[in-house]
């Protein structure tokens, strides 16, 4: 059981993450996707908004996305507290600073704006979308990597 407490190998992680797609369909009848939870939070926070993005959004049918997000947080807590011999911090120590906070805030903004504009993220587009042979999802994934590579190689020396 010693291996359980170490980081898991890529093949086990990949298989189990991939199984989320059929399991979520079979057990709950839901399509795997996480970034819709951001829209659900927005819609719940602004119940009287005149913006179509919220007023035409079905808050009730998408409430499960928040339950899913809470589950992810609980799972990470369990993994960090009880399933890790030597839990590594998720973020580098350099992020625990004012400049780090600004980077996370700006990067977070790009995540929220970008995923909602693209209509999905790594889960909804890259995994669920490509698995269902949806070509716009493949294009989205190419663009995710284009954006990430451009920032890492173009601004990496200045940012990190």
């Amino acid at each position, binding site marked *: 059981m010693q291996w359980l407490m170490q980081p898991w190998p*890529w093949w086990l992680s990949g298989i189990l993450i991939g199984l989320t797609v059929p399991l979520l369909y079979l057990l709950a009848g839901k399509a795997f996707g996480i970034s819709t939870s951001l829209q659900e939070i927005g819609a719940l926070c602004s119940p009287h908004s005149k913006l179509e993005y919220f007023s035409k959004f079905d808050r009730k049918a998408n409430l499960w996305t928040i339950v899913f997000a809470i589950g992810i947080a609980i799972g990470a807590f369990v993994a960090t507290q009880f399933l890790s011999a030597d839990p590594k911090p998720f973020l580098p120590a350099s992020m625990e600073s004012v400049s780090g906070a600004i980077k996370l805030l700006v990067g977070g903004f790009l995540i929220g704006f970008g995923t909602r*504009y693209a209509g999905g993220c790594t889960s909804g587009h890259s995994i669920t979308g490509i698995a269902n042979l949806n070509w716009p999802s493949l294009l989205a994934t190419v663009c995710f990597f284009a954006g990430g590579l451009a920032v890492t190689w173009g601004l990496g020396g200045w940012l990190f």
Partner: protein
Amino acid sequence: METMTETNDSQPPKQAEQAKPATSPAAYLMVLLMGVYLGILFSKSEVAHWQRIHDMFLFREAHMYLIIVTAIVVAMFSMQVIKRFQIRSIEGKPIKYSPKPYHTGVVIGGMLFGAGWAITGACPGPIYAQIGGGQWMALFTLVGALLGMFSYAALKPKLPH
């Protein structure tokens, strides 16, 4: 043509409720359990670790690429089995994928998200995982993501789609 009789502005539109069946308490429980499952995986596979994302974009290691490709292959095979045998959910509902359509935002939004992923080391799922795992700085990422989502909501009518 729209008939003007019996219109009541205070009533919410009904068609959305009919199109999507309500989520049962049992389904909510399953969603929560699947979230816990995924949260454990995000942590133990280290896909929620900034360094892993950074090393992926620098092509320093194959870890992330192997995980993503394996996950896609497993999900693709599972969907073929579900389609081939017309498997239903445990509540007896048919399983059908609704395709996400192409529009300009897939390209522009996709690249903006990729940039955010590289900076923060998180995509939306790992943001929740990092916070749950006690990485409080990730709250800045979440606040940023919510601000980004609200900005998109406000700008949506003016953006090309």
